[in-house]
């Protein structure tokens, strides 16, 4: 009876995970998806507590401890999650992931002890043994790796390359396999258990240690899918479908996600698995003043603009060179249709002839009403969410205001920096007509979207349309 309800609860739980993850893949539904998954999880947990019966029909004990643990975890978890800075989110995820891994590891420890107490020989229970040991290994690797990732992101641990790191890693992996084999088939028994634990922990640490901060999210995602597998192993162990399905789901989705993240960063997963990344940080390079610029992914630019209230486009000579006026107009239209207020800020000397931008935009049938002169638009930047600079350079160069030594010092410019975000599209870091470096590109609010304006806009529009 009660198990029927438990099963139904688990079913609901599993379904909620699937649906939740599905919804998390779309900006519009993501938040609800998270909520659904959380509700399903709560249901599964409480159903377990109250309805779970083992094979002989006996329910659970130690309610006090269970609720105590739940309470402590909930309070601490909520506070930690609420308090954390927006910028510190990734390390928080890493930390929580580690907790999950540790939890899986502990379960393996308890179950292993249980087997030993019952005097069972591992070799007689190959399936169960493999599951327990694998659960330990994966859980511990995930825990140890996550802690290191947390430390690195938090700045407590520095990147360091370990001499011969790859060889050591491979050796550790082999050691793990050998120990497991010996424990089960070699009759080595109990004694090696804690060594296995230790070796796994060391592997987890060394695996993550050499990896650079920029690649950390990929690693966390990978460890995340590891923990998923560990949870699934728990499902096998207890013949528990919600653990199995939830764990496998995360294992598989997490792997896909890891691959996607790699792709977004232009790396291969192989790179990640053999632990050889780190080194030169891409996506961030040194500027003239020793500063560095950051790139923005197309999808991020798309979401940023789609969810803005107000976007100002700053066209420049590059837009004309790319002949991207038509697709630019399309961007304007699709944003406008999605309730974004879009304007063009026309600098008096943008382009290569007086009125160049007007000619260009008129050709694409951009309404005159959307074009704003510099004096009129400059005060508007302050309440603008995103400024999209399309192939303009000199006309947004802050040196004109700040650097008396600059040859353009004194020229009025478009104050794009007053906006919340500045996205600059151009093909490279080369200067414009005046031949001078532009500090704007290295400012914290600025992200670069490299590429020919026509190409970049075409992709951007496609991306926005796929979301809207």
């Amino acid at each position, binding site marked *: 009876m009660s198990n029927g309800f438990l099963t139904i609860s688990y079913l609901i739980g599993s379904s909620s995970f699937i649906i939740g993850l599905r919804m998390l893949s779309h900006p519009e539904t993501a938040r609800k998806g998270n909520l659904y998954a959380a509700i399903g999880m709560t249901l*599964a947990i409480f159903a377990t507590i109250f309805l779970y019966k083992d094979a002989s029909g006996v329910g659970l004990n130690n309610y006090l401890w269970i609720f105590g643990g739940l309470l402590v975890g909930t309070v601490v978890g909520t506070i930690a999650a609420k308090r954390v800075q927006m910028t510190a989110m990734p390390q928080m*995820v890493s930390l929580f992931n580690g907790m999950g891994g540790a*939890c899986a590891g502990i379960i393996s420890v308890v179950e292993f002890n249980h087997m030993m107490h019952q005097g069972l020989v591992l070799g007689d229970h190959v399936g169960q043994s493999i599951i327990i040991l694998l659960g330990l290994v994966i859980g511990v690797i995930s825990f140890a790796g996550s802690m290191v990732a947390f430390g690195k992101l938090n700045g407590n641990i520095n990147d360091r390359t370990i001499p011969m790191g790859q060889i050591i890693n491979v050796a550790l992996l082999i050691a793990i396999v050998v120990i497991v084999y010996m424990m089960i088939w070699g009759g080595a028994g109990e004694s090696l258990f804690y060594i296995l634990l230790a070796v796994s922990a060391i592997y987890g640490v060394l695996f993550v240690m050499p990896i650079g901060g920029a690649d950390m999210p990929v690693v966390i995602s990978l460890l995340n899918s590891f923990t998923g597998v560990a949870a699934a192993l728990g499902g096998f162990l207890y013949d528990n479908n*919600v653990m199995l399905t*939830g764990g496998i*789901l995360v294992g598989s989705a997490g792997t896909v*996600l890891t691959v996607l993240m790699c792709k977004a960063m232009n790396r291969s997963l192989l790179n990640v698995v053999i632990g050889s990344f780190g080194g030169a940080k891409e996506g961030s390079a040194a500027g003239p003043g020793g500063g560095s610029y950051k790139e923005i992914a197309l999808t991020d630019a798309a979401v940023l603009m789609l969810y803005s209230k107000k976007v100002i486009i700053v066209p420049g000579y590059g837009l004309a060179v790319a002949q991207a006026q038509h697709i630019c107009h399309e961007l304007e239209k699709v944003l406008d249709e999605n309730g974004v207020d879009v304007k063009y800020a026309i600098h008096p000397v943008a382009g290569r002839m007086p009125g160049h931008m007007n000619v260009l935009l008129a050709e694409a049938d951009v309404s005159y009403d959307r074009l704003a002169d510099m004096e009129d638009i400059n005060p508007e930047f302050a309440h603008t969410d995103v400024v999209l600079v399309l192939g303009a350079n000199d006309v947004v160069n802050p040196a004109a205001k700040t650097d008396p030594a600059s040859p353009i010092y004194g020229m009025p410019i478009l104050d794009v920096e007053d906006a919340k975000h500045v996205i600059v599209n151009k093909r490279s870091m080369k200067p414009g007509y005046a031949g001078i470096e532009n500090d704007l590109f290295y400012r914290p609010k600025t992200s670069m979207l490299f590429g020919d304006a026509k190409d970049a806009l075409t992709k951007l529009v496609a991306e926005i349309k796929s979301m809207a």
Partner: protein
Amino acid sequence: MEQILVYITENVNFVFLLILMIILGFEVISKVPAVLHTPLMSGANAIHGVVIIGAIIVMGQAAPDDYLAIGLGFVAVILGTLNVVGGFVVTDRMLEMFKKKKK
């Protein structure tokens, strides 16, 4: 090899479940905008917190005098809860920017 086949035969449905779930995992995350990578990871992270159910079972099945099991189980429950609760809350916070409805 043989053992595996036997295992499969004995647990047909389990194996089916497993494969289907893997396919579903792939299906579900087919096209995600990069901005959602981190929240999605975080959400998935919270979901594997389902391992807490194992911890609860361990805990609940421990004999009242098996202090080691109880102690470890207690820690495991706390850790699992942290994973679940922290994971969902953090994800929710990340997703705050998508709050306002458009169109």
